[in-house]
């Protein structure tokens, strides 16, 4: 699902454009680790903020950081990414909550999580608390 590119006026008065792309889990489910990371970085390099349904596995996240750093080294004006995952609070799950979560996980992966990834040039900071994410946009 793509959202239309729009222009926003930032606090310092400068205009900046950004585009938000929502990726359903089904779009990345069958991709290899290389292809998932490549897909994400391709979108980020085209200045898109991604909201991914679900979450990356730990080894995919670290690969994303690794490949991002390689890109920072090679792509002019690319400074990296901001990344955050939000998950429902499951610190003390009941038996039924655990059962439902495991069932959903086996069917569609971590689909009740959301991952936000954006280029550091647009996403200044993602403040993450256990239950909420605040995405701060700005001109760097």
């Amino acid at each position, binding site marked *: 699902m793509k959202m239309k590119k729009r222009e926003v006026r930032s606090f310092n008065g400068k205009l900046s454009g950004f585009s938000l792309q929502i990726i359903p889990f089904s779009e990345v489910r069958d991709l290899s*680790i290389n292809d998932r990371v490549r897909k994400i970085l391709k979108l980020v390099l085209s200045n898109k903020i991604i909201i991914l349904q679900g979450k990356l*596995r*730990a*080894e995919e*996240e*670290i690969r994303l*950081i*690794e490949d*991002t*750093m*390689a890109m*920072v*080294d090679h792509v002019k004006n690319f*400074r*990296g*990414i*901001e*990344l*955050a*995952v939000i998950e429902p609070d499951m*610190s003390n799950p009941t038996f039924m909550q655990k059962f439902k979560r495991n069932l959903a996980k086996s069917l569609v992966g971590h689909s009740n999580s959301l991952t936000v990834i954006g280029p*550091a040039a647009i996403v200044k900071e*993602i*403040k*993450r*608390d*256990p239950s909420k994410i605040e995405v701060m946009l700005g001109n*760097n």
Partner: protein
Amino acid sequence: MIRILKNISKRILGGLFKKRDNLKIGFYGPPNAGKTSLANIICKDWTGEEIGSVSDIPHETRKVQFKEKVEVKHKGKVLTFKMIDTPGIATKIDYEDFLKFGVNKKDAKKRAKEATQGIIESIKWLDDMDAVVIVLDSTQNPYSQVNITIVGNLVARKIPVLIVANKMDLRKAEIKKVEAAFPEYDVVGISAKKGENIEEFYESLFKLAKKI
């Protein structure tokens, strides 16, 4: 995935034959959390010399640094290990951030380039660790994705973890928040700068070594 499976099998087979004095303990964490400051305290206490330089400018450590055969003695027990101090892991590097610290543009760009390579090197070393001390700045939000990614990768590789909440001497320090963020792990609050709570850290380090 293959890398993780290889690491787990290496750990199982290696564990059967490994001598306890060949342990590799890594110091990981975000930039400017105090990894090298803590590593310096340990190295100075037990080898007489420091492992690396420290600075207020982020990404001071841009290459993995080693200290072979660090022998720590605590309450009649001895722990010998190879210390690996790693560059801080981050998702972004902007040379302009270094300009704010008075670094000139040319050096800031060089520092940024070296920092990106240092992060890649830190990540590559993850597979080789027997145990990891994650050093966090207790004045910062512990829920940052970098912290969670580091912990998640160590769990996936079945590498034991100790979390150090550094800078406890500062007014903004929130050790409880770090504990709440990582309830399944031992968290020890210290001040590497002032040398506070280091005995408790050594106690936790020995507990960590037992989990290997």
